Each structure stands twice: as structure tokens, then as C-alpha cells.
């Protein structure tokens, strides 16, 4: 009897609970709708169009505005009624033991992933054939690997040392222009210039490091941002050296131990008795950037287990404690900047060699932002997280280009790539709701006595420069 009454009460309170939730969700959605309407009325509701007599006329776009508001209201309503309570329940749920498949997944994921990226070009050629492979290996594989490498490089500065660097693209630019200018003017080879570009970039990394050593947090971010712009401005305006906006064309491409990839008699295809195809060069480039990327990852993982890597992480955790233990924080920060910049320099010289054309357009702030968001989305300090984020972000953009069937739905003028930034932002918001500290939100200890325990990122600091 009593138990029944209690169950009834619980039932009743639950009904009441859901009613309260419904009311709250409706109110929430209505408020969001109001804000959206107010915000989008001038942005979407009205449009100025130049008519045939060259006059500016005001037209309205009510259906579009209504659609935008309805989508936002519906989204907010769904979030408030379903996602939010679900998240709350998830937070209350006690921690569960890790299922066995996760363990095996973790154990085999990395070897499988490395095997996959090595076999990737072969798989692509097997699936889409010799002709269609170019696009998938070049636009997809190489592009993603470049950003993965940049992400891993920036991860040293931002993820490990906790120094927020918004001007990372500057080092990428230094690497690219170093290769382009030295290869074109002095005819030096790619393999000689690759390390040289890395050294020059890390030199600039140290140069940036010195003035910003005293700065912390937001101030550091602003100065690095400015540094990125300064490098770009110098490239644009020093036309005698860099040819300004026009960029540098005809940059020598890397050769296969001295054998160029062209259709000549002494070209790669002819020497090896193959039919000429541009794919050989792309395959060669793919494996170069793969090797460079894996080198970056390997060196970074190695550095984490060395005193310098531990000092970077300690710096992120507490600078004052570092100093009390005799760690020279100045040098430690400089090495982080130099290391990160060096890998960007490698990637930059590869980029110049691959494109054979570079211009300041390729080194705008948006590149820095992309690489930084790869690091942040991946989970700061996590190598695998950065790799996954690079695949999703860069691969996702490239996939958008392939969605030509959408033209049949939305009309021939529809260009899915224009929605890139929108999706970018959406992905960012979702990740920040779902996993505020990135995809991989655990830190792997660099050394252990008995067992390697994952450290929840909640304990790990983000660093303040």
C-alpha cells in the first residue's frame, strides 16, 4: 500500500518534472527565437541589390528569415527538452569500468592507423582507379597530412608548453619562402633545404620568443597574432625579394634521387619504363609528407618522455614552481617555440615544393586559426586527438567539394564549400558542449612506476603562457 503510494508520488513528481521541463524549454525556445529574429532581421531579412540602372534597392527575404528563425527555435527547443537533461543524467551517472573492446581498440588503433595511412594510396588506386586517384591522394591525403603535421607542431607550443600562439602560420610561411627563394635563386635541392627551412623557422621562433617571454595569457596571444601579420606584411611589401602579392612561381619540385617527375626521356616514368602519369609525383609527395608527419609525431612523443618535455608540461602547470626547482623558464619556453616553429618550417617547405607556387594568400590568419582549432578540438596535448581533428576538419572541407549532387537539389548555383565556415563553427560549438577539453580528454603520464593511469584533463591546466 505504502510502497504503491510512494511509487505514485514518484510517478507524479516525474510527470510534474517533465511538465516543468516542457514549460522551461518552450520559454527558452521562444526567447532564443526572439533574439535570433532581432539579430537576423537586418542581416538576412533585408538585402540591398543593385538594379539595372545602377541604383541600390532594398529587397526583403522574409521566407529565408522565417526559415532561419524556425530552425534556431526548433534546435533550441530540442536541446532544452532532450539534450540538456541527457547531459545532466550523464553527469550524475557513476563512472563505469572501461569495457573490454575499448581496451583492444586502444591497443590496436595506432598500429592499424599507421598501416592504413601507408596503404592508403594503394587502396585509393584499387578502388577508384588510376585516373580518379589523383584527387583523393592529393587533395585529401596530402592536404590532411600537412595540417596534421602543423597540428602536431603547434601542439608542442600550445598543448604541452601551454603558450597560446595565434601566429603559427608565420613559421609555415618562413619555411615556404625559405625553400622557394633558396631553391629558385641558388638551385639547392629539396633535401638540403628541408632541414635548412626548419632551422630558419626555428630561428624565427626564437626571435618571436624573446619579446613575448614576459607576456602571459591574452597578451601573449595578441603579440603572436601580430607577429603572424608582420611576417605576412613583410612578404607582401618586400616585393624585390618576395614578389609581393604576385607570389613566387616555378618553384623547383623535389626529384626522386635526382630523377625529375616529368614526361621527358630522363623523367621518372621513362627511366623506370613506366607510362607517364602525374600520379607518380603525387605518390612521392604523399610519402614524403607522411614520413615528415610521422617524424613530427615520433619526435614529439619522444620529447614528452625527456626532461625538456616534462619541463614544458610543468611550465604549463605552474611556472613559479618550475623556477623554484631550478628550471630556466626562459630557455624552456624558447625551446618550445623553436621546436614548434621547426616543424612548421618543414611543413612550409614541403608545401612550397608541392604547389610550385606560393603567395601571401596562403599564409593568412585563418590558417593559424584552423591549425589552432585542430589542436583545441583534438584535445590539447593529445597526438591522436590532433590527428583525428585534422582528418575531420580538413577532410570534411574537402568532402564538401565532392558533394556535387547537392547542386541537383539546391540548384546549379549552390556551392557547398561556401558553408565551410558555418559547419566549422557548428562543429566547434558541438565539441565544446560535448567535450569541452577536446576529443581526447585524458593525459597520458610520461613515466610510471607500477601502472600507467590515465589522467583526467580536469586536473590538467591549460597554461597561461
Amino acid at each position, binding site marked *: 500500500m505504502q510502497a504503491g503510494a510512494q511509487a505514485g508520488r514518484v510517478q507524479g513528481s516525474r510527470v510534474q518534472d517533465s511538465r516543468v521541463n516542457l514549460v522551461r524549454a518552450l520559454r527558452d525556445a521562444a526567447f532564443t527565437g526572439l533574439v535570433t529574429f532581432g539579430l537576423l532581421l537586418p542581416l538576412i531579412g533585408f538585402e540591398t541589390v543593385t538594379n539595372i540602372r545602377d541604383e541600390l534597392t532594398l529587397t526583403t527575404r522574409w521566407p529565408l528569415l522565417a526559415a532561419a528563425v524556425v530552425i534556431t527555435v526548433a534546435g533550441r527547443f530540442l536541446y532544452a527538452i532532450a539534450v540538456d537533461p541527457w547531459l545532466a543524467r550523464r553527469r550524475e551517472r557513476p563512472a563505469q569500468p572501461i569495457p573490454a573492446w575499448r581496451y583492444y581498440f586502444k591497443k590496436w588503433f595506432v598500429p592499424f592507423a599507421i598501416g592504413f595511412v601507408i596503404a592508403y594510396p594503394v587502396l585509393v588506386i584499387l578502388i577508384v582507379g588510376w585516373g580518379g586517384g589523383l584527387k583523393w591522394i592529393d587533395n585529401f591525403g596530402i592536404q590532411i597530412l600537412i595540417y596534421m603535421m602543423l597540428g602536431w607542431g603547434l601542439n608542442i607550443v600550445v598543448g604541452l608548453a601551454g603558450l597560446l600562439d595565434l601566429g603559427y602560420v608565420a613559421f609555415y610561411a618562413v619555411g615556404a619562402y625559405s625553400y622557394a627563394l633558396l631553391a629558385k635563386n641558388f638551385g639547392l635541392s629539396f633535401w638540403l633545404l628541408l632541414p635548412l627551412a626548419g632551422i630558419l623557422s626555428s630561428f624565427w621562433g626564437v626571435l618571436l620568443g624573446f619579446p613575448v617571454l614576459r607576456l602571459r595569457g591574452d597578451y601573449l596571444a595578441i603579440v603572436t597574432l601580430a607577429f603572424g601579420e608582420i611576417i605576412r606584411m613583410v612578404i607582401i611589401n618586400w616585393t624585390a625579394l618576395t614578389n609581393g602579392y604576385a607570389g613566387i612561381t616555378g618553384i623547383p619540385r623535389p626529384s626522386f634521387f635526382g630523377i625529375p617527375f616529368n614526361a621527358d626521356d630522363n623523367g621518372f616514368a621513362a627511366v623506370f619504363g613506366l607510362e607517364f602519369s602525374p600520379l607518380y609525383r603525387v605518390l612521392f609527395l604523399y610519402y614524403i609528407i607522411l614520413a615528415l608527419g610521422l617524424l613530427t609525431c615520433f*619526435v614529439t612523443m*619522444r*620529447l614528452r618522455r*625527456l*626532461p*625538456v618535455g*616534462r*619541463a614544458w*608540461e*610543468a611550465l*604549463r*602547470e*605552474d611556472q*613559479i*614552481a*618550475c*623556477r*623554484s*626547482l*631550478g*628550471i*630556466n*623558464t626562459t630557455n624552456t619556453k624558447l*625551446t618550445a617555440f623553436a621546436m614548434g616553429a621547426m616543424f612548421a618550417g618543414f611543413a612550409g617547405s614541403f608545401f612550397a615544393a608541392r604547389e610550385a607556387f606560393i603567395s601571401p594568400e596562403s599564409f593568412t590568419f585563418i590558417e593559424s586559426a584552423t591549425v589552432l582549432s585542430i589542436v583545441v578540438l583534438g584535445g590539447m596535448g593529445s597526438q591522436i586527438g590532433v590527428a583525428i581533428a585534422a582528418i575531420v576538419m580538413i577532410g570534411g572541407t574537402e568532402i564538401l567539394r565532392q558533394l556535387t549532387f547537392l547542386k541537383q537539389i539546391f540548384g546549379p548555383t549552390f556551392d557547398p564549400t561556401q558553408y565551410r565556415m558555418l559547419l566549422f563553427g557548428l562543429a566547434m560549438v558541438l565539441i565544446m558542449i560535448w567535450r569541452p577539453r577536446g576529443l581526447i580528454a585524458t*593525459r597520458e*603520464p*610520461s*613515466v*610510471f*612506476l*607500477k*601502472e*600507467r*593511469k590515465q*589522467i*583526467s*584533463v580536469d*586536473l*590538467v*591546466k591549460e597554461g597561461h603562457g
Partner: protein
Amino acid sequence: MAQDASPVLRVEHLTMRFGGLVAVDNLSFEVGRGAIAALIGPNGAGKTTVFNCITGFYRPTEGRLALHRGDPAVWSVLDDLTASGKRGMVRSDGALFLLERMPDYQVAQRARVARTFQNIRLFAGMTVLENLLVAQHNRLMLASGYTLLGVLGFPSYAAAERAALDKARFWLDRFALTERADDPAGELPYGAQRRLEVARAMCTDPVLLCLDEPAAGLNPRESAELNELLLRIRDDHAVSILLIEHDMSVVMNISDHIVVLDYGVKIADGAPEAVRNDAKVIAAYLGVPDEDVAKVEESVGL
């Protein structure tokens, strides 16, 4: 105060001004070799400022802070060293450093003065073991050939890392932290965090260990354990200890020598028994009856 023949630290005429505020005024004292010295005083007396001057976090406005190790004869070159403008000197029979001239990390690295903080400063997201390895940074850095040899995997670094792990294990054992070695430092209970901070400082092989309120927030049993631990450290490892503490059970039980500060001025200096009965100290801590105010003010020199 009895002059120690060869103290480990000699503080002379230390003055620290922040703008118009004199935080420490003409303070002189010594920390005896192998002794535990305590720096006490009411809140805001300037104790932590003295610590920050000794460990190089502040550059004193005036004064000389000389740290010595090795043969007592080395003390004789103090004035020459001061005149030479150098930061310190190392001879085969000992070393002498002028701490007021050194930046913080060099005080820890070269002069081997380790410290802990009033508000615990651990590397919370790193494991207990990693905390202890970071403390051995400089030696490991050298062994890894400033990273170059380490990246290439030279065996000399592996040996150095093993030695570092052994040392870490020793201190974990000493401080009863072995069980928690692989846990993140931020997850330890408060008392264990305090112990870990001392263990981390000990991993730097200090000559002088400066502890800023090591017993703050510990329960009586924990602070009794801490007492024993500090005494053992002093006896077994040739370390001198300078500590700031409010917990009188710690101060009175283990200190060989107490310096009392009030408003940046030294008001007493001596053995625990003498300091405990010193009228100025009692006045500074407890105040005085109304009728005695004039008398005490006169004796203090106000």
C-alpha cells in the same frame, strides 16, 4: 646570539621596500649548518618576503644573503666575492653564493636552495612520480645532452633516468607516497600534497630547504609526523632547514633556533625557550594589558 662558526646562510642587513612600504627592515640572522631555524611572526610580518628574497623571487632593495657549503674557510673570501661583483664562486673545497644577485632558477640550480610554497604549488595534472622527475630536471637535461642525445636514444640518458627514478622512489618511500606514485598530484589528499611538495624539493638535492608553512592545514597527528620527517631529513641528509610556521607545536618542538619578525623588524632571535619567554614576542602575538602599553612601547623603542 651566539655566532655560529660556519652557518649555511648568513642574512645581513636585508631590506625590502615595495614603493613606500618597508616589508623587511634591516634584518640580519643566520641559519646554522644542519640546524632547523624557524622564522615566525604575526600575519603580514614579512616572513614570506624574506623567503622570496632568499630564493631569488624578489631582488632585495639592500642587504647581503650569503650561502655557503663545504669548508668553513671558504667564508673568508666573502668580502672579496662581494667586491668582485660575481654571483658566486665554487672551489674544490666548497662554494659561496650571493643569493641577492642570482635569479630564482639559479638560486635553486647553483646554490641549491629548495623551497615550498604557502599555497601548495604542485604540477597537479602530472603524476606524483613526474613531479619528482621534474625536480631533477637539470641533471637529466645534462644527461640527455640537452635533449639531442635523448631523442637519439643514447644509453647514457637511460642510465641517468634510471638513477632519477631510483632517487624519486627513495623519497616516495620516505614520505609514504609510493602507493600514490602513479596518481595525478592534484588528486592527493591535502596532507599528502604537502608531503609531496617537500619530497619534490628534496629531489633537487638542496643544501638549504626553505619551507613556507609546511604544517598549515595538517591535523595534529599529521604535523607530528611532519616533525619527525623533518628531523630525519636534517639528520640523514646534511640539509639545513629554514621554515616559516604558525603551528607552535612544530616550531617549538623541532627548531634549534627561532627568529621572530614583526612589521618587518626582527624582535627576537634565539633558542625556542628564550623566544617563548621574550616579552616583545608575547606582546607581538598576544598584545599587552592596557596599563602596560606605555612600558612595552618604551622597551620596543616606539
